[in-house]
């Protein structure tokens, strides 16, 4: 059991964890009711990863995210209302409703955006790191990616570049056990954390459900990146606890645009889109992070709905 570092504001940390979870829990209900257009990927269960990393970051630091970005957005200090409005596609949303869940961003907070092409945002993080170095600033860039993303070429190229250009970049690999339905234990050859070694980048594996574990070990990496020296880039493979909380569904609230589109069996599938109970397939570790902070009252809902995207008939 980790001890609580003196400088850590545990109340703030706990607030953040709760904020991320509450947001997703409420969103999940809205999704199940059919009120959210498009594709939505919930971060529930992975809170300690985003929060544990972002506690080390300031607004000037940059975060490059994935399709599963709500938690990163909030942990980086993004506005809750702007996030919600964006996900619902409304004016006042973080991107004016043009982006949606898969593209939420808050540039003023260094949250450079959800990016729904797997692996695509990793090079942007090294670009941010490059800019920091170019201008002699002490900012740090963090790239988040999933276990699935770890098999995209872009990430490897970026690690190599970050190393040889000695850039202040932290690569966080959030392994939640699955890429859609495909198990990371099968799809990712070798141990992810060892891949960084092939590039001479130091790496560490942390428990992505344990805030203190994330906070403490990632802190080393962030400091290394920020303070410079010869080994600036770091990689961290973050094992997150829950199963994939992926809910993709069709919008229903929209008016049909073309009268000839008869209702189809899509409708019945929508109702099947409710949140399924924890399927018990994943290790159901409790969020030790919260327990550590002695405020945990609730276990993460490792809800996993595998319902595939059903196109709405316009």
């Amino acid at each position: 059991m980790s001890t609580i570092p003196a400088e850590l504001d545990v109340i703030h940390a706990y607030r953040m964890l709760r904020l991320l979870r509450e947001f997703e829990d409420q969103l999940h209900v809205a999704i199940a009711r059919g009120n959210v257009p498009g594709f939505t990927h919930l971060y529930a269960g992975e809170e300690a990863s985003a929060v544990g990393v972002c506690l080390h970051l300031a607004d000037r630091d940059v975060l490059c995210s994935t399709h599963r970005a709500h938690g990163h957005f909030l942990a980086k200090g993004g506005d809750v209302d702007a996030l919600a409005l964006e996900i619902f596609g409304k004016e006042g949303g973080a991107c004016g409703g043009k982006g949606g869940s898969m593209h939420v961003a808050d540039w003023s907070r260094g949250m450079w955006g959800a990016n729904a092409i797997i692996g695509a945002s990793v090079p942007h993080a090294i670009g941010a790191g490059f800019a920091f170095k170019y201008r002699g600033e002490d900012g740090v860039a963090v790239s988040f990616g999933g276990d699935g993303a770890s098999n995209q070429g872009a990430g490897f190229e970026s690690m190599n570049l970050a190393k040889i250009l000695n850039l202040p970049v932290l690569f966080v690999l959030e392994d939640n056990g699955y890429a859609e339905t495909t198990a990371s234990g099968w799809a990712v050859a070798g141990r992810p954390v060892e891949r960084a070694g092939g590039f001479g980048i130091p790496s560490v594996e942390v428990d992505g459900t344990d805030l203190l574990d994330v906070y403490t070990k990632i802190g080393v990496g962030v400091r290394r990146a920020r303070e410079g020296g010869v080994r600036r880039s770091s990689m961290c493979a973050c094992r997150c606890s829950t199963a994939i909380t992926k809910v993709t569904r069709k919008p229903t609230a929209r008016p049909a645009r073309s009268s000839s589109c008869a209702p189809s069996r899509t409708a019945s599938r929508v109702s099947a889109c409710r949140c399924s109970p924890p399927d018990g397939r994943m290790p159901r570790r409790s969020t030790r992070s919260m327990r550590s902070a002695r405020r945990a009252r609730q276990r993460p809902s490792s809800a996993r709905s595998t319902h595939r995207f059903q196109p709405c008939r316009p």
Partner: protein
Amino acid sequence: MSIKTTRDAIRETLIAEMERDPRVFVIGEDIAGGMGAPGEQDAWGGVFGVTKGLLGRFGRERVIDTPISETGFLGLGIGAANAGLRPVVEIMFVDFFGVCFDQVLNNMAKFRYMYGGKASTPITVRTSYGAGFGAAAQHSQALYPMFAHIPGIKVALPSNPYDAKGLLTAAIRDEDPVIFFEHKGLYDEQGEVPDESYVLPFGEAAVVREGKDCCIVAFGRMVLLARQAAEILAREGIETTIVDPRTIAPLDTDTIVEAIAGCGRLVVVDEASPVCGMASEIAALAATECPRALKAAVQKVTPPAVPIPFSPALEAAYLPTAEAIAAAVRKTLQ
């Protein structure tokens, strides 16, 4: 013959071709689903459920889930095709061709010619496309014009279940690489589809409707909108011809030009971006092949040249509609 959805027509084609030819296999992300995850085999069958049920019939040897490595597994398909197999690769959304574009542009499209006719790459790549689902800028594109621009590949764009089956059968049996475009909005569309296999040859457009006043050339899901527009117009006494090219590489220019010249008026409807898209390609055909026959300016009905917005209201404004097509036809008649 029975009523089937496009999804089912595609699935039964895959099954038929896999049964007919042991060299055929399917590969893609979550194409069966659940790989490495005991207990949930064949839960998905691809993100749109098209390949659901294949795993049970053909097993993991011929229904292959992949990591998220499009360059890797598309390249694997290309290599397997070079070696004499008949891969059917799924790129989940056409937008994801970005990460494996080189394998199309410089590899599968080039091999036969660049290696002096001695290489053969009989690969079929299935992909989904199209807007209308709140999937925003990176999951809603059409992009087929970019593939039509590349010499060396064939591109199919079926607008209904019947064509989907015939074209996919042709694609899988073709000796050259084919990209097969499936509109997300057509998966649930229904139509009559024979149970037995049949081949629709590439490069033969369908004349979906005949009418003397104006010719509408439409692609993919836009054919549905064109039909709706034609109904609206028919009620106004305006008779339209609708041409559905079905494949854009090769393109049946003869049928299209004949239809344009016959009507003297042309509306082209394309869900792709307007610049260097199929709408321009067809309008150009009118200008190069039969300009004298044109009685009015050609009308392009396409989205504006912007990324695809997320918000349903904006997305609705972005997409062509039957009413916009009807208005364009009326304009040619003024």
